[in-house]
């Protein structure tokens, strides 16, 4: 359980924690779209991205998300960085420009653009991770399922409680993650004591070890689900009947403030995009590398 630290709910009482999960989900989507909107000129895009990045840093500080966790999760991205760089270096560049050549590998010319492109993608990925982290660290998983249920509630027109059933399924799945992790550890210990080695041997031997873990785990999970459904039924659960609610979601003044700010940022970026506004034209590329701008 301890290695699942990424995006774990952190019980603080900050402004962001107090926001309505429905609002947070919507704001997350708006921010994600903003990140992937690209304004025409490189320089404008860079400034916008930097602005969003600073905004996210501020949000992280505000919601007391640990930066250590962020760095930990980023440390796994090295592979992706190298992979992207290789792709951009060796895929023929449609905007080939001899002035952008950075260096040669043998007789192969490597463009600066490869670095900008992969750097930009990585940067956006980092921001995506930051956004999801802020969401999951400040929102209880259960509140998220309530939010999803709320967004799906228009499905009521099908006279089948789709939203409720989906939310209930999700919440039970979330509720049983720690229980099943404990179970996994127990089975691993039991199988190790019978001579299964999960860490050594070739690939086939390891897969064999995994089978010895997964099959008992499934058997136990199915047994649990049977008992769980019994317990739910015995307590009078009926998804088709009218049920009252213990948890209710409240949209407060905080949500209004947060939502309007995010909407304003999103609207601003969208307007720039639509009107092709290159509000600033500094040739960063020329400035940094002495090469002429690409776009």
């Amino acid at each position, binding site marked *: *359980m301890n290695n699942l630290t990424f995006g774990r709910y952190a019980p603080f009482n900050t402004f962001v924690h107090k926001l309505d999960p429905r609002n947070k989900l919507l704001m997350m989507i708006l921010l994600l779209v903003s990140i992937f909107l690209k304004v025409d000129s490189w320089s404008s895009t860079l400034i916008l991205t930097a602005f969003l990045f600073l905004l996210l840093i501020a949000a992280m500080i505000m919601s007391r998300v640990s930066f250590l966790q962020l760095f930990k999760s980023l440390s796994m991205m090295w592979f992706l960085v190298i992979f992207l760089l290789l792709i951009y270096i060796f895929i023929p560049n449609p905007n080939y420009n001899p002035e952008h050549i950075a260096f040669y590998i043998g007789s192969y010319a490597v463009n600066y653009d490869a670095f900008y492109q992969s750097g930009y993608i990585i940067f956006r990925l980092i921001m995506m991770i930051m956004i999801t982290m802020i969401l999951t660290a400040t929102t209880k998983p259960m509140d998220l399922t309530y939010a999803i249920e709320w967004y799906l509630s228009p499905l009521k027109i099908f006279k089948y409680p789709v939203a409720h059933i989906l939310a209930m399924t999700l919440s039970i799945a979330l*509720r049983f993650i*720690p229980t099943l992790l404990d179970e996994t550890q127990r089975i691993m210990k039991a199988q190790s004591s019978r001579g299964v080695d999960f860490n050594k041997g070739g690939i086939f031997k390891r897969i064999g070890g995994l089978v010895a873990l997964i099959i008992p785990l499934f058997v136990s999970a199915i047994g649990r689900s049977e008992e*769980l459904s019994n317990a739910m039924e*015995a307590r009078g659960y009926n998804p088709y*009947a009218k049920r*009252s609610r*213990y948890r209710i979601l409240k949209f407060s003044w905080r949500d209004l403030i947060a939502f309007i700010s995010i909407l304003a940022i999103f609207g601003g970026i969208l307007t720039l995009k639509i009107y092709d506004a290159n509000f600033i034209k500094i040739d960063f590329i020329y400035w940094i590398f002495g090469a002429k701008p690409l776009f």
Partner: protein
Amino acid sequence: MKNVVIKNLNYSYNENTPVLKNINLEINQGEYVSIVGQNGCGKSTLCKLIIGLLEKDSGEIIVNGLSLNKDSIQEIRKKVAIVFQNPDNQFIGATVEDDIAFSLENNNIPREKMITLVKEYATKVGMEDFLTKEPSYLSGGQKQRVAIADALVRNPEILILDEATSMLDPAGKQEILSLVNKMKLENPNLTIISITHDIEEAYLGDRIVLLNEGEIVLTCRPDELFKNSELINQYNLSVPFIVQLQKKCQELGYQINDEDTLEKIGEMICQSK
């Protein structure tokens, strides 16, 4: 008043292996009945039949004057609460308060009333400080305490304990038994059906029902059963500590009655020389 009446009940998982054979049982309101028997004798099946989790083959089950069938099942489930064996697999809510509220949500109780009821019953089972805790931070005994709160919060007439203590450590077990005792004192009209392996636990009941291979072989007061060494040997039962102690002391020549408690016997032994 008869709370549960079972007439000529038969049940089998498949045709060749009957699990319950011609069960006849009446349980009065406020009674504490222990159902004992060996593994696979049909104890748990019987209680699943009472709340309609399994469908009977033949016979009749009447709970609180209502005959159990498809139409009355929801009504009956409002009156009967059950606590199962595995503490993890009956914890449905994300936190203690959500779990207690789950039963209330199912009964469409208004939210304001729910909030007070959740607090009240969490306090009753001594879990008021754990309301926002998740199940992975609770011990087995604490989870079972929550399960009892879940069961009682709907104000049932009948509480079934289906080996509710069998997966707990001795401390957790004691916790649950004293809690059940306390609930019983608070509400003497609560009928308790306790299904158990544990002979000490069965001894707490007003009446013992002994099941063997799907048949009721005996119903009697607990002390009557445990004084009868013939029956004990026949069904391979162990004898509760208090009965063993009484017997030993009587053999040693102490003047001991069957109703004497552990404390009283201890006192007598200390006073005599």
